[in-house]
């Protein structure tokens, strides 16, 4: 295999600081050396390479933009975005693993947890000694989480939780799950630990996408948790889980570019060496048009991601910006993966190459963290001021 060469058509490299480039290059090298050699077998087996968790923690990719006092690296958000990009260059499952841990578990504990909860959980999660999951989606409520059926009932100094969550990344393996449920005063967030009576998290099998990632159901049957330790005191209302999603979606907007870059790199080098009708595939106009279109889309996506990152570091990034970034970058990544898959011919459907794996993975990424169409509606609302989520 040729060494990976990331497309950088407009010399965006010089827009990054030396630290940002060093972070990116470190994660890139790790993915090439340690992750890519094992991803295919894990994808085929439908397993996540758990043996790499200590190395990921050692690198510092869990919650890297959270403060150092919790054992995190305290990086800026552009560096965090670049980490997501490089991880997803490996596999969307790897980026999901890290996104969930950092943006959907560590972030809510950091933002809405008590000091004790932060001190207890954040260093463990940063060190990979505990794994987390985020339970919002339910069998009957995905795009509309506000309709959730999971219930929380107060009982003395405890809460009793009942309900079912579906499609929860890392659920089965999680030591702690951030579970959202409706209480009398609105939606609240709870920390549910593995092994608590009444709580189980069976794995959802037979996925043909994001196979190198654990996806689970969370079943809560009269799970009793202490308010002081297991409820996030400051998390009140749907805006809290949505706020976590904004963090994660920001990372996905970068991550999807990583998958697109991997496919593009593979298809570009393949097209230069594959001889069809006596000439390299890359010498024909149709493939060149595909490459020109894809290169342009990736470059536009990179500009959008970088702009979002700088806005986020200035504290000016708005959720509707992230709607556009996630929607666009995942969409172009999926289209690029499909085109690259095609350009590799039959080899494109083989797991010996990366394009097919990225293509099937991106179908999940297109749906989770707000489907493509839900983001369309969010942008539509930002532009018109008129929400169009409901009929009538």
């Amino acid at each position, binding site marked *: 295999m040729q060494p990976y060469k990331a497309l950088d058509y407009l010399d965006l490299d010089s827009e990054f600081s030396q630290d940002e480039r*060093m*972070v990116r290059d*470190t994660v890139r090298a790790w993915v090439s050396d340690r992750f890519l050699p094992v991803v295919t077998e894990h994808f085929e087996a439908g397993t996540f390479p758990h043996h790499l968790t200590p190395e990921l923690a050692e690198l*510092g990719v869990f919650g890297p933009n959270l403060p150092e006092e919790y054992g995190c*690296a305290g990086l800026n958000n552009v560096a965090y975005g670049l980490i997501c990009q490089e991880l997803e260059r490996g596999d969307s499952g790897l980026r999901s693993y890290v996104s969930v841990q950092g943006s959907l578990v560590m972030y809510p504990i950091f933002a809405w947890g008590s000091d004790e909860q932060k001190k207890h959980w954040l260093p463990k999660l940063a060190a990979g000694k505990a794994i987390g999951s985020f339970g919002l989606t339910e069998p009957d409520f995905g795009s509309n989480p506000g309709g959730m059926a999971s219930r929380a009932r107060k009982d003395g100094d405890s809460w009793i939780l009942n309900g079912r969550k579906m499609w929860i990344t890392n659920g089965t393996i999680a030591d702690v799950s951030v579970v959202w449920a409706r209480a009398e005063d609105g939606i609240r967030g709870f920390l549910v630990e593995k092994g608590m009576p009444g709580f189980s998290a069976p794995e959802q099998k037979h996925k043909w996408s994001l196979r190198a990632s654990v996806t689970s159901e969370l079943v809560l049957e009269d799970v009793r948790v202490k308010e002081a330790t297991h409820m996030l005191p400051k998390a009140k209302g749907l805006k809290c889980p949505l706020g976590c999603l904004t963090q994660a979606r920001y990372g996905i907007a970068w991550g999807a570019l990583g998958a697109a870059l991997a496919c593009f790199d593979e298809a570009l080098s393949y097209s230069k060496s594959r001889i069809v009708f006596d000439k390299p595939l890359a010498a024909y106009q149709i493939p060149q048009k595909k490459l020109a279109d894809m290169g342009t889309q990736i470059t536009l996506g990179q500009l959008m991601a970088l702009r979002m990152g700088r806005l986020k570091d200035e504290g000016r990034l708005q959720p509707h910006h992230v709607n556009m970034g996630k929607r666009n970058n995942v969409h172009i990544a999926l289209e690029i993966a499909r085109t690259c898959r095609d350009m590799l011919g039959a080899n494109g459907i083989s797991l010996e190459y990366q394009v097919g794996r990225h293509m099937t993975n991106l179908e999940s990424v297109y749906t989770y963290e707000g489907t493509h169409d839900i983001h369309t509606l969010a942008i539509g609302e930002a532009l018109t001021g008129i929400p169009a989520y409901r009929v009538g």
Partner: protein
Amino acid sequence: MKIVACIKRVPATETQAKIAANGKGLEPAGVEYMLSFYDEIAVEEAIRTKERVGSGEVIVLTLGPAEARKELVECLAKGADRAILLVDPAWSSRDSLSTAKLLAAKIGELAPDLVFTGRVATDTDSAAVGPMLATLLGRGCVTDVVKLTIEGGGKLKAERESEAGIEMYELALPALITCQKGLNEPRYAGLKGIMAAKKKPVEEVAVQDVPNQIAVETAQLPPARKEGRIVGTGAAAVPALLEALRKEAQVV
């Protein structure tokens, strides 16, 4: 223990070499740089030695352009304590001896117990600076080390691999070790390390010009490889293949 690791900024492995217009070296435009492979091992061994001993300081030292700060910061991110950059406008045309003299002058001031270098820099491939440095500093030196142990009483045990087999040496501090592949597995610069490196000092020192004794006359790319030839397919091709390997390629 005070330890110095010498490193060099070299063209990245993927560089497509082009000869500069003056015909005497590499065209610098478009070249990306990296820490030389064996120097990474030297830095790793320096950090591990400090960790094993439990105290001390690791100083990374390079002679190079101002841009070599990038490679130094990478070493700081991996765990070195401070860095010194001998800024040399003529770095790309330096010969081994003048490089060694300039490094030796600085190392002499620092007076470390142990100096590590890579066995060879991956650009010029001379494997000369390490032993020259040891000579100029009057230190014991073992080259191409694959295993190093720190014994009590200022003694070291070093193993080197040669064509003859494994050679074992004992030597006393202060010493210089050149590092071979296999000595260790260099760590990644962790993200916390990258943040910590921002607070570590990189000292830039202008160097005195020491004249070169060797100059490049001309540099040329190797001739293009001849196109391959398919001698046949399957087991039936084996005799023809052996014949070609024996007669044409003369490798068996």
